[in-house]
């Protein structure tokens, strides 16, 4: 039962253009969402997050959008740079209940930014 889904295994983008990575979730209890970036041979590192009380959060070139009614979130990277090439994981958690703080991840999307 995949509660967090990233349906695009890979994405290829030209340097300077926008990268849009998508994520869908099924559990309506999720109220906090995170994006992680992972380089080869390293652990995932936190990138940006958003609470369910917001629909947008921005940090420099990175913006996360949340559409609660569609149970969908997206990460926008503008402008994309070759150093952004990595695997991007979407994660979700419910901050209440017995499993509070449990992070559920998607399968990841490989982003390649071409010079």
């Amino acid at each position, binding site marked *: 039962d995949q509660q967090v889904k*990233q349906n695009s295994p890979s994405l290829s983008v030209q340097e300077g253009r926008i990268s849009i990575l998508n994520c869908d979730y099924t559990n309506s209890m999720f109220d*906090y969402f*995170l994006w*992680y970036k992972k380089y080869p*041979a*390293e*652990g*995932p*590192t*936190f990138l940006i*997050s958003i609470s369910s009380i917001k629909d947008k959060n921005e940090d420099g070139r990175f913006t996360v959008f949340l559409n609660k009614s569609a149970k969908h979130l997206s990460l926008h990277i503008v402008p994309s740079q070759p150093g952004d090439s990595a695997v991007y*994981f979407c*994660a979700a*958690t419910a*901050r*209440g209940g*017995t*499993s*509070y*703080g*449990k*992070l*559920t*991840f*998607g*399968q*990841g999307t490989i982003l390649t930014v071409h010079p």
Partner: protein
Amino acid sequence: DARVTQTPRHKVTEMGQEVTMRCQPILGHNTVFWYRQTMMQGLELLAYFRNRAPLDDSGMPKDRFSAEMPDATLATLKIQPSEPRDSAVYFCASGLGAPTGLHTEAFFGQGTRLTVV
């Protein structure tokens, strides 16, 4: 420089052998996660602890996997006996959680790449 430390970084073992992976969470963090990265499933949660108590280990095959926190500075993940299908990268992560939820994002270690032949 606070970081999550995992040992060993790489492990090659024969099928049937016991494997123990270790994790030192960031000092002061009270939540520890064990994840496994596979091509098909992405990052699968195996188990997680808060204040050293197991909160959820439903993602872990109970017959061969076990996870413990002997103390606040050490988490272990053990596989006995190991099988080729256990070959994956195993990540430990730690964070600061509270009844109202996770205060901070989880910080990941560099992982243990396990190969069972």
